[in-house]
């Protein structure tokens, strides 16, 4: 037996595609954000509301990742025609190669901002760079306030944390969710993370999120 030193990154192929996507987007000055959460936190609902309410200011396209169906892509289509569906056929995350193909099928030149809705999963998608400018993690109050402590990776890597479904906190429903604890835990992992408590259902808090998006898109246009 003999040993050979390799010292190579294993996900090098994914990283190469991610760099290619990132170059493609930078050249066209398009902002691309990768949205990650557990199933049902409200990614699609947030996207639909955001696209509709910002449509006069920012043109938004969506790459919709799902394990098998096109239900979410159809929901998004009610708000924008710029949607491309990726079915991962069982895989729990999108890969940069899949996003590369999807980018070619979006009318990128007509858009300012491209959202990638990743497969509903709080762990796996955070390990795969897609070439995005930033990750947006969504945590809904129904999931519990221990999630940043239990799943630190995605909170450490995200630019923005959207705490969704805050309408449930005031609705007389028993939800044990301490917003301040989540903010503190997330900031311990990531001192620069922007945190917006929102309700995609009632629209509460969404204007701060829109403010951040508008500014980020504006910075790219400069």
């Amino acid at each position, binding site marked *: 037996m003999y040993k050979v030193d*390799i010292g190579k990154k294993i996900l090098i192929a*994914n990283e190469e595609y991610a760099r290619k996507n990132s170059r493609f987007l930078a050249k066209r000055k398009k902002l691309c954000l990768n949205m990650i959460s557990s199933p049902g936190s409200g990614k699609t609902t947030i996207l639909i509301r955001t696209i509709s309410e910002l449509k006069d200011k920012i043109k938004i396209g969506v790459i919709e990742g799902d394990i098998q169906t096109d239900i979410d892509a159809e929901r998004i289509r009610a708000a924008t025609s710029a949607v491309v569906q990726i079915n991962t056929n069982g895989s729990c995350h999108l890969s940069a190669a899949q996003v590369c193909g999807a980018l070619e099928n979006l009318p990128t030149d007509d858009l300012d901002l491209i959202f990638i809705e990743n497969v509903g999963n709080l762990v796996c998608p955070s390990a795969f760079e897609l070439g995005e400018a930033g990750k947006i993690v969504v945590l809904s109050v129904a999931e519990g306030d221990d999630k940043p*402590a239990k799943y630190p990776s995605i909170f450490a890597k995200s630019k923005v944390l959207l705490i969704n479904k805050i309408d449930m906190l005031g609705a007389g429903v028993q939800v044990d969710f301490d917003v301040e604890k989540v903010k503190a835990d997330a900031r311990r992992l990531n001192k620069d993370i922007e945190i917006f408590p929102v309700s995609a259902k009632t629209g509460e808090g969404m204007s701060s999120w829109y403010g951040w998006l508008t500014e980020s898109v504006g910075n790219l246009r400069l």
Partner: protein
Amino acid sequence: MHETMVAQSLLAAISSEADRQNARPVGAKISCGTFDAINDEILCFAFEAVAKGTGCEGVKLEIEHKPIRCRCRDCDRNFDFELSSPICPECGSEKFELLPDAPLLLETIEFQTEQRNV
């Protein structure tokens, strides 16, 4: 199962080195950071599945998990991040930042000497 994609990429890397060496691989050592969320059992299982029928069938994986390192913003020391007690072990401060996580690396491959014919 993101381990499946890791297993496929790993298989490609080991196979190409095996071709270069013209030898039979028997083991590989990989290392990963905490945020890669690699489950050893699932990765070994996934690798076994994709390696079946290839020159990498039977390769044993050894997986090292590296801790997340932090830097204390009060006393400037570096330490390992512990989820159970997220404070600086030197000064007890809660103000620290995480340093970049260790990448997912293929460290070494072990080959059988006998069949080497180069």
